[in-house]
């Protein structure tokens, strides 16, 4: 009998293997293999660490945690049906997927106790833990996942973001009605506890996708009984750490610990209250002690930081995303490569980000530091190095030489908070100063913006990409792939670029994959398909009695964001001093 492996040993092993070039995914295979050999340790890995109390501190009797504001749950969720609409803005901790993302944005097993693949990574097998239950007490089985993923791909359910599952064999064909037999879709429960997923080709990143919202399950009986209303509080059956106790639309949601959840004993919070608070309210509810944790908008950050009573409650947290410019290559003057190059060299990133007052860092490529595929290539940096003289000299030989004769240029952006507009205005200012390029900033209503964006009807776009899952496939393929049929943001296409993305997708070896994406970034910046400007960071404030906020390897506190979503199971409250 192999002795149980502790968490620390697992992490240590991951680190050591990492230092000799074994990626996290390969490590997972090793770990899964170890688990398969019978080590109980892997299975027994707790969902969250036990509360650590300082001397004299006591766990609060009332473990009711309240959070929201500053952009969190600013509008009433459309539903909690991530299986149908992964941008439904619902509460993710109601559900547990096969994998989840930890505070380091790595995909780790959640409901899966074993993840393995064939040699080229085109068939993945997930073995599901037998002790996980839906909130009605029934077991969560591989069949639930087969049904859920097929439901999302089924054209009848009209899931708007089904394309995230197109890596599954015949997933795209089934979703686009080219085949009608769901049996041909490459996801199959070979028994109650084994899910076998056959992909369109080698997909080294599939475990990462399996940790993403797109792969969350839905409860079949409830969906069949209640249809679109199945995630209302009265109807919902879920399998995550929490259940939805009540949901007063446009007012508040109340979650309660799910006693059927397999890791329920590791969850300390009993109740979570989430009021729906518009961004305009700022941090007022936090100031008034109505919530314990809030995300912050630009205006409140300075105020809370400047007040000695609240300064220590404020912290920065990662929210991987990238602000960039899209010069539409089909519209003058950006159909001229020299103009696009001039723009790339005219952006004074160091200064532009100052107006975001801490909410942005200067960006020189698509992927922020610390994520797989992040680049710090001097060759790429040189392509968009800020140099006003060089920028102006790019215009030589164009009709715009010397910064003259610019046509009317409209910079369009989506209406959104968090300092998006000041950043756009700063970009306008540096373009005016360095290229004498006058632009008009047009702030469009989100729906209108998206419609026109996808028609590639906008001349010049200020836009961001928030990372969905931490793999370059998301940052490049889901964003810029030229053969995308829906939701393509830019008219720019480049065959070489597309080939690199396809190669990156179809390669199993992590190092070789990342090399393809590095090449893709270089091609895109050489042809100026986009101009990176800023990486996103955010700030939050937590009352002193809120504990258990996870930290990543860099020591930053990590709260609910765009990849890390399972914050609540880790939190606990101590008695207020």
């Amino acid at each position, binding site marked *: 009998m192999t002795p149980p492996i502790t968490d620390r040993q697992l992490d240590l092993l991951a680190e050591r293997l990492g230092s000799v070039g074994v990626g996290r995914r390969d490590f997972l295979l090793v770990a899964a293999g170890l688990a398969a050999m019978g080590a109980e340790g892997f299975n027994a890995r707790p969902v969250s660490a036990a509360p650590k109390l300082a001397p004299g501190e006591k766990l609060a009797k009332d473990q009711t945690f309240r959070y929201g504001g500053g952009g969190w749950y600013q509008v009433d969720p459309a539903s909690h049906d991530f299986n149908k609409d992964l941008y439904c803005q619902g509460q993710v901790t109601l559900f547990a997927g096969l994998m989840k993302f930890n505070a380091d944005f790595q995909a780790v097993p959640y409901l899966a106790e074993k993840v393995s693949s064939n040699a080229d990574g085109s068939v993945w097998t997930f073995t599901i833990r037998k002790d996980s239950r839906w909130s009605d007490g029934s077991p969560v089985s591989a069949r639930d996942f087969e049904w859920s993923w097929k439901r999302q791909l089924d054209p009848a359910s009209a899931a708007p973001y089904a394309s995230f599952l197109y890596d599954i064999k015949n997933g795209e064909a089934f979703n686009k009605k080219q085949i009608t037999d769901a049996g041909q879709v490459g996801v199959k429960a070979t028994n109650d506890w084994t899910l076998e997923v056959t992909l369109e080709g080698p997909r080294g990143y599939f475990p990462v996708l399996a940790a993403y919202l797109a792969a969350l399950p839905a409860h079949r009986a409830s969906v069949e009984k209640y249809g679109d209303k199945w995630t209302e509080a009265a109807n919902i059956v879920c399998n995550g750490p929490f259940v939805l106790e009540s949901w007063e639309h446009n007012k508040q949601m109340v979650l309660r610990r799910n006693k059927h959840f397999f890791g329920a004993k590791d969850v300390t919070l009993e109740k979570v209250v989430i009021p729906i608070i518009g961004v*305009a309210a*700022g941090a007022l509810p936090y100031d008034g002690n109505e919530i314990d944790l809030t995300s912050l908008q630009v205006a409140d950050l300075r105020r809370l930081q400047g007040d000695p009573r609240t300064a220590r409650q404020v912290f920065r947290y990662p929210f991987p995303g990238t602000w960039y410019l899209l010069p539409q290559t089909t519209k003058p003057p950006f159909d001229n490569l020299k103009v696009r190059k001039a723009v790339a060299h005219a952006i004074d990133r160091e200064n532009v980000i100052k*107006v975001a007052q801490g909410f942005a860092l200067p960006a020189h490529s698509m992927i922020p530091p610390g994520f797989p595929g992040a680049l710090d290539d001097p060759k790429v940096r040189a392509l968009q190095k800020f140099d006003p003289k060089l920028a102006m000299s790019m215009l030589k030989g164009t009709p715009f030489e010397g910064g003259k004769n610019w046509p009317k240029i409209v910079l369009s952006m989506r209406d959104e908070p968090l300092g998006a507009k000041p950043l756009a*205005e700063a970009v306008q*200012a540096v373009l005016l100063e360095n290229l004498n390029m006058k632009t008009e900033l047009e702030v469009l*209503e989100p729906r209108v913006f998206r419609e026109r964006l996808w028609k590639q009807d906008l001349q010049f776009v200020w836009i961001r990409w928030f990372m969905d899952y931490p793999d370059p496939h998301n940052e490049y393929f889901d964003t810029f792939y030229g053969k995308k049929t829906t939701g393509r943001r830019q008219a720019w296409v480049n065959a070489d670029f597309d080939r690199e993305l396809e190669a990156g997708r179809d390669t199993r070896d992590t190092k070789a994959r990342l090399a393809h994406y590095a090449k893709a970034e270089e091609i895109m910046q050489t042809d100026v398909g986009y101009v990176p400007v800023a990486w996103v960071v955010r700030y939050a404030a937590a009352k002193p009695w809120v504990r258990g906020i996870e930290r990543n390897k860099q020591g930053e506190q990590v709260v609910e964001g765009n990849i890390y979503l399972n914050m609540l199971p880790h939190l606990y409250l101590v008695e207020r001093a």
Partner: protein
Amino acid sequence: MVSSTPVFGTDVALSPRSEAIGPARGTSLTRDAFRRLVRNRLAMLGLIVVVLMCLTAIFADVLAPYSYTKTNFGRLNEPPSAQHWLGTDQLGRDLLSRMIYGARISMIVGLGSQAIVVLIGVPIGALSGFAGGRLDLVLTRLIDVMYAFPRLLFVILLMSMLGAGLVNIFIAIGLTGWVFIARQTRAQMLAIKEKDFVGGARALGAGGWRILGRHLLPNAMSPIIVAVTFGIPEAIFTEAALSFIGVGINPPTPSWGQMVGEGQQYLRTYWHLCVFPSIAIAVTMLAFTFLGDGVRDAFDPRQQ
């Protein structure tokens, strides 16, 4: 009716050939009105402020200490200082300079949109009142339908269809603002066309268009002038409201409403961003309203 009270039309009826109002040829009505206006202290105060605003708008290039696009990323959101009298904004631009250029936008919107309002509203009202009959019925119903729409909502609707921008603001305000003036003009027409001097003109052989243009319209001018004086601040405020919610003037062109909109989220951190442009809007609105009240009272003392 007390005989000494001037009544619309009656004075002019004595000189039916009078073509326009103006101090030069002067009718007793206009001269009286002017005298009453000058005596009204509040109105004069309003007028002075309005004139100052207009001068600021015209000479913005000379008056503004900095360019309204000149950024200084090292000095963001600074409070008022000797160098920047009203402080700097989120991009380190001089707030005073932006407000001075903002006055230009406000004045252009106020005057420009009222020009459109008059060009649409007066002919429709005049035609409706003068022609009567079925045409009047159709036009009156049209006016009623336009009245039924909540004005600002209709403007927002138009702006979201047309897109933001100065010209579109003219169009949106013009298309929604003409109804009041049209109604006023029509009412005047109905009253005046029954007067003796109109009958006299007709007896002398004047045609319909001549009567309308040379006898009716000039005598209907005073309520139109009053309506325009009130229309200007309303248009300025509408532009401010539109820019406040982000469908008005596009950055980097400064507009007071836009400045308030961007500044209000920083009210507790950088108060000056929101407070100064708000004061500018308030003072301008007040000045025009005082002036408008004065003009109305001057033309129609019975309303006092």
